[in-house]
């Protein structure tokens, strides 16, 4: 792969200010690290998944890539251009090439605009309103599998799946190179979830898109993502090929996440790794390995020393005692 990646994220950090001025005097931290050193690349036609539980920083990272959230350190290169230093005005033309889909399928559509106006919105914003928008709207509706009558409807008249399709039509309107989708199947029924993922997959192949998908649903990740990163407290704890990670998770947190996924099979033997304790607060990050408070394999060194980064060919993780990479697959036999 000599082609340059569409998106290259290097050591990105995002901090949020918290509390009052007084907290500084009381020697409490005045900001929290929501994203702590994220690095990954996405190439044309590739899907990268960011996986993690609430508060892991995955949505914040996505907003940072999209320029909605300033970063405090690191670099984000989109189509070879550094975007963290660009002003809002200079960022505007780049937004044509990078679209973001938000979690709530209906809530991310402006309620007083018709579907036709919503789909025409990107063209109007980027000054291409003179083109025949009516036929553009029709073309995009057809592309996402909606009939032209939908142009006259309002968001509240759509089902979740239909609203999601409108969101996809908006996202691909200006021929982007990258789509960032935040929980694209949140709030959708299982029977509709497949339709939306299939549509995204098809468009990715057809239009050669690069995609970043944010989700907590590991089953979805398994089917659609080429590579993935698992986030915990704003850090990438394990990054690699999806298939390989599912077969042999090396970080204990990844393994616990995979085992915590209830499967629709009542007879399945469940070798579950249950995680004790609660997720620590970002205001009080644990010392040493940040996962040691919940890790079933934690040892003395994990409590005191920050684990090194293990770099293997196409696997990257931070753990003192990675689970054997050539261990037996996690999936148990049916009893």
């Amino acid at each position, binding site marked *: 792969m000599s082609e340059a990646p569409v998106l290259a994220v290097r050591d990105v950090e995002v901090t949020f200010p918290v509390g009052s001025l007084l907290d500084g005097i009381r020697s409490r931290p005045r900001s929290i690290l929501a994203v702590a050193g994220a690095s990954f690349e996405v190439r044309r036609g590739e899907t990268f998944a960011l996986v993690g539980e609430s508060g892991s920083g995955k949505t914040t990272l996505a907003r940072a890539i999209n320029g909605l959230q300033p970063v405090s350190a690191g670099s984000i290169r989109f189509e070879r251009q550094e975007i963290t230093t660009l002003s809002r005005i200079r960022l505007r033309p780049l937004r044509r090439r990078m679209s973001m889909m938000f979690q709530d399928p209906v809530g991310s559509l402006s309620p007083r605009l018709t579907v036709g106006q919503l789909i025409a919105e990107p063209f109007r914003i980027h000054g291409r309103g003179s083109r025949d*928008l009516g036929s553009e709207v029709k073309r995009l509706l057809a592309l996402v599998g909606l009939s032209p009558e939908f142009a006259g409807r309002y968001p509240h008249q759509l089902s979740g799946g239909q609203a999601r399709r409108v969101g996809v039509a908006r996202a691909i309107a200006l021929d982007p190179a990258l789509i960032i989708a935040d929980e694209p199947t949140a709030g959708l029924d299982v029977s509709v979830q497949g339709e939306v993922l299939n549509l995204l997959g098809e468009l990715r192949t057809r239009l050669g898109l690069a995609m970043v998908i944010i989700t907590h649903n590991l089953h979805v990740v398994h089917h659609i993502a080429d590579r993935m990163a698992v986030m915990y407290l704003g850090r990438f704890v394990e990054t690699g090929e999806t298939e390989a990670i599912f077969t042999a998770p090396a970080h204990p947190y990844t393994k616990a996440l995979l085992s915590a996924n209830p499967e629709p099979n009542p007879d399945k033997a469940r070798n579950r790794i249950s995680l004790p304790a609660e997720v620590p607060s970002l205001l009080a990050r644990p010392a040493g390995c940040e996962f040691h408070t919940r890790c079933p394999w934690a040892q003395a060194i994990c409590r005191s020393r920050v684990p090194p980064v293990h770099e293997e060919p196409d696997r990257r993780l931070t753990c003192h005692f990675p689970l054997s990479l050539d261990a037996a697959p996690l999936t148990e036999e049916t009893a």
Partner: protein
Amino acid sequence: MSAATSDIAGRRAAGAFLRSLRKVLREPLGALGLGLVLFVVGAAVFADLLATADPTRISPRDRFLAPSAEHFLGTDQLGRDLFSRVLYGGQIALAVALGSTFVSLLIGIVLGLLAGYGPRWLDNLLILLFDAVKSFPTVMLALAFVTLFGPSLTAVVIVVVLVNVPSYARVIRTQTIALKSSEYVAAAQSMGASTARILRVHVLPNVIGPLLILASMDIPVVIAIEAGMSFLGLGVRPPTPSWGTILNDGFANIRESAWIVVTGGLPIILTTLGFTFLGETLRDVFDPRLKGR
């Protein structure tokens, strides 16, 4: 957008308007309010056709006449035809009410959007300003302005705008703050929409509804302010007819003729009731919490 789609949107809007109208008419008070408002507005608009005499023509021989076929509502202390004066007074009352409400809406919306969507310091500054203006009693404000600029219609309009703008801006600000973090505003930002466009296309249409209802309920208050200021001699100057000045004339001459007070007061009461009933019905019809009842 093609002509066909905008036509469909137009018809939809018309349909929504008719549906709301039907809901208003279904409420007895709403129908009464709408009837009164239409009656008053009609009388003011067609004052030139309906008036039976020049409202400012003095006729000393016809002072304090009781209602008759010639003078429907009688005459005042200068022998002016009260029916015609009430009609033209309605023009002034409505012009002041609608005009100053419109100006208040414009300023209130702009300041409210700025406070709600702009930086925090601007919000704090504007809120301080609104509170400062709000803390003056209306009459004090009116007196201060008249002392500075002399009594005139403009003074009335300025006082009304000053009284209304802070509450209108606050309504817009609160809702704008709520919408600022909504996903569809974030979606517009991520597409690269300018702030002006976000405010115009995505924020304003979603915050203006409650404000319009609030404003329609404020119209009777404005009419009362105009009448009150004219009554006190701070508003419309004689001989221009105004409901407030008619009321004042009647008050001064109540021993000669009780008619004048009634002809000055009745239109104020009817208009106030009409707009209040209409405004309250509109609020109920558009309140989503009451929908489906």
